[in-house]
């Protein structure tokens, strides 16, 4: 661990040094682009009020400092059609001078994966420069949690669960499929506006199962756990370098869904259902939010942005300022980001077909 830290620190130092010399390099060799006096537009395909807005607003001022020439970075919101409007717009843009970037989210990835007819964009055309991961935690009211014996969730199988959901084709697909695999009969109540409303429904005692992404869990549910009105059930887990699901570093004491599934009769961690769940989990959580340069971006521009995000990560205070807003999750650049993009947007055809069929059969949702 200490070795890892040292090497990482050394790497960060190198990056910082590289960034510090970038402007000079620009004059000398032409590596990287200079954005002095320019305005970088960061398109977010959601409204000002969502989670992606918070994420972009957190990064924008830091990115501005880290980019060569310290351009103004403005976040531009382009909501509509569940983010497909903004993504379609970005698809039409061609690389100009590196002043246009795009921030996608799991809600942009899922319609792409599921073959939503509105999707006119293709991730393969874009150039990823940052990938931010997150995790998720499912939790129960204490009386339900008491019915679990250790990791075995089969005691919950006869119960009626109500879950406040934003829609079966959204990120909620991951918890809904997970609970179904455990044999729980969870009835989603659709039409809530955000996960915060889902938590409120849980607090009011109307819903008796819920999940939150990590940062919302830390802020909103931990106090409930402390006063005894909620008990964590499991986290979705995190990915290690080899692509295995391991315990979430933010919640090392919490079992993952994989562990619970293994301990519960009737739930299997292999087969098409599991592969489908895993594929969509990866698309929705470890590679949830990404920053892209448009089609045709020059290698210089990609290098410049990659270096800038690395410099942001290398800030001495980054861990402190980011933990509350982003959680303790990898903020990936370079090849790591490319890997995240690949695992988040290239889902096996079988997994795709399984989920499409499951959505139609279980919720009557057709994507046409």
């Amino acid at each position, binding site marked *: 661990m200490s070795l890892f830290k040292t090497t990482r620190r050394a790497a960060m130092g190198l990056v910082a040094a590289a960034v510090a010399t970038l402007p000079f390099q620009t004059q000398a060799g032409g590596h990287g682009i200079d954005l002095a006096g320019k305005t970088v537009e960061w398109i977010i395909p959601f*409204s*000002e*009020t*969502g989670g992606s*807005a*918070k994420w972009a*607003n*957190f990064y*924008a*001022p830091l990115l501005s400092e880290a980019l060569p020439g310290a351009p103004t970075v*403005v*976040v*531009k919101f*382009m*909501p*509509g*059609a569940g983010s497909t*409007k903004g993504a379609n717009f970005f698809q039409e843009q061609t690389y100009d001078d590196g002043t246009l970037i795009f921030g996608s989210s799991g809600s942009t990835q899922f319609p792409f994966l599921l073959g939503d*007819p*509105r999707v006119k964009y293709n991730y393969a055309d874009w150039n990823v420069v940052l990938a931010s991961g997150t995790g998720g935690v499912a939790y129960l009211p204490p009386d339900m949690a008491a019915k679990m014996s250790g990791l075995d969730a089969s005691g919950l199988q006869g119960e*009626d669960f*109500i879950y406040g959901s934003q*829609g*079966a*084709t959204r990120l909620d697909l991951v918890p809904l499929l997970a609970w179904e695999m455990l044999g729980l009969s969870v*009835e989603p*109540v*659709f*039409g*809530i506006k*955000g996960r*915060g*409303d889902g*938590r*409120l*429904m849980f*607090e*009011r*005692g*109307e819903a008796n199962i819920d999940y939150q992404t990590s940062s*919302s869990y830390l*802020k*909103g549910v*931990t*106090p*409930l756990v402390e006063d005894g009105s909620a008990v964590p059930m499991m986290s979705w887990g995190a990915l290690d370098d080899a692509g295995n699901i391991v315990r979430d570093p933010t919640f090392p004491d919490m079992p993952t869904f994989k562990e619970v599934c293994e301990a519960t009769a009737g739930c299997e961690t292999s087969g098409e259902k599991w592969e489908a769940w895993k594929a969509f989990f990866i698309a929705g959580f470890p590679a949830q939010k990404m920053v892209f340069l448009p089609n045709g971006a020059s290698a210089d521009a990609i290098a410049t942005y990659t270096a800038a995000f690395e410099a942001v990560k290398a800030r001495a205070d980054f861990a*402190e*300022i980011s933990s*509350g*807003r982003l959680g303790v999750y990898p903020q990936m650049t370079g090849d790591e980001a490319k890997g995240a993009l690949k695992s988040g947007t290239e889902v096996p055809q079988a997994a795709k077909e399984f989920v499409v069929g499951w959505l139609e059969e279980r*919720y*009557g*949702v057709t994507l046409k």
Partner: protein
Amino acid sequence: MDVIFTALPALGDAWALILQPVVLGYLILGVIMGLCIGVFPGLGGIAGLSLLLPFMFGMDPILGLALMIGMVAVVPTSDTFASVLMGIPGSSASQATVLDGFPMAKNGQAARALSAAFASSLFGGLVGASFLTVFILVARPVVLEFRTPELLMITIFGLSMVGILAGRVAIKGIVAAGLGMLIGTIGEGASSGDLRMSSYDFPYLTDGLKLVIVGLGIFAIPEIISLLRQDRAIAKEQALGGGWLDGVRDWFANIWLSVRCSIIGVIVGVIPGLGGSVVDWIAYGHAVQTTKDKSKFGSGEVRGVIGPESSNNAKEGGGLVPTLLFGIPGSGSMAIFIGAIALLGSGQIEVGPAMLKNNLDITYSIVWLLALANVVGTVICIAASGGIAKLTTIRFALLAPFLFMIIAFAAFQSGQNLMDLVALFAIGFLGIMMRRFDWSRPAFLIGFVLSNPAETYANQALQIAQSRFRKGFGEGIDYIFSPIVIVLLIITVISVVVGLRQAKSILAEGDVKSGSKRAPLAFLLIVTGYIAYALFDAASIPSFSRDRTFPMFVACVCLLGCAVLIIRMMLKPETDTVFADRERHGDDSEATHGLWPTLAWFAALLVLTALLGFILALGLFLFSFLRIRAGLSNVAAVIYTASGIAFMCAMAWLLNRDFPPGLLQEYADLPWPLT
């Protein structure tokens, strides 16, 4: 007692934090920025806070809070200017203010209406803050008592205000509200994402119509067009009666109404999920019901201004409860507010359940900064109201093109799309027709605003109730008929019965004479046709989807109403009130300009925008309107146009918005702002 012992020191700390000169300085700065932004319809707290966001990073928390709260607090105060002076509902908080505020301005009482509104706003803000100081300590369990059936019941209570505002022919009002609800269901259903009255081939409608567009279209455009046709100033008399002191006196004479409406505002604001959309209507309804002589409502009754304005600032305070205690934003601006708080300082303020425990002093600072911002904002507004009221004496032909410009810009805020303008025009046309044939526009707007919560809560309550009933009959009944639901039910029934009895004497839109049969019947048939098609469209959604139920139910009720109206039209003579038509008698029929040529000006702006992009189109529109319709000299028209365009560009630059491009931009690469 423990509670008080922790609360009092925290309150003391809060005041110590607030009463630093630098904090007050930031607060005033925020207030001034908020006033400047709030004056423009469609630009509210969201736009303002987005402006401030870049500066929040790492800022001293109390200074950042002062700046942001100063800005958010005064938006419902300053949008009163647009509501009262121009008849433009500046935001959802001031829709009801238009009903009596604008007629007062037309009667030359603008300053009086404004200062009565501001005094009420101020008072509402203070009552809200005092109430919250105590209530916030016990709010959590109370708020959690409001489950989905309770939320549904409050929504229905809000809808019952249609009864009061239905106009002379109650069924017409109900159909208008139903039409509003149907228009509110356009787009993707909340339950399974099925499309209503829209298609993916035409993506604009799939997100539904935004309140800004419907509010502006239904209220502002008809009024602007009507005034423009008459070619006069807003105020009928040149001499403005009623100074600002009169308004304050009016407010003081109705102080108890103001108290009650403030309390209504806080309580509705506290409940997460409803936000500001119902509160001003409930307050307006309350003002009507508690007034003995109801004949003046709709034509300039000051109580109709005091009620909603007392409630809407109090609501902002109430809205802090879900925001701070649950981390659930009550409105769009509150959502950004939460995001911005995370950026402040080193992020030690964590909005959510832990807020009271860890940051009670900050919580109190926020509550009282809000109240203080109200005081500062109101004083500035009252001081300015006399001067700004003079706008109502300007010849309207000089004002109108700039109003069109501002309304169009406000409409773009919702989708930044040419289709926003088309939708505004379409809804505006519907508004003009509803005004002409005396269909209640407030009822339509209430229906539209509450369509979404009514549908969602009805579906959710039903679904959860079914699950409870499966567990046991008693459990289901307990869930649906909680004490709160029963109380709300009784209030609603009383309000509907009383409201319908009184509705005939409340002419929210003034008296309208009846005329011939043909035009009103044609309009009714078109409305019926739309409703029938909406029914057909909803019925074609697969039957397992919950997204079809609500529009089908509403459409069926509306069709029944339409049938009754059609039969009545067939049986009654053409002097019957059901044939009300403004083109027959009164201001509209005697107007200097016809409806169609006036509307054509706005249509021209639309078409030009589609061809040339907004800024070029606006330039042409402003110049030719001022030159031809207003009869200015070339030089004057050029100067006016240039300043209008400069202003628009400055706003767009500040808010970082692009203008919708036209056909020209497909072929030519033009520099900003022409892009």
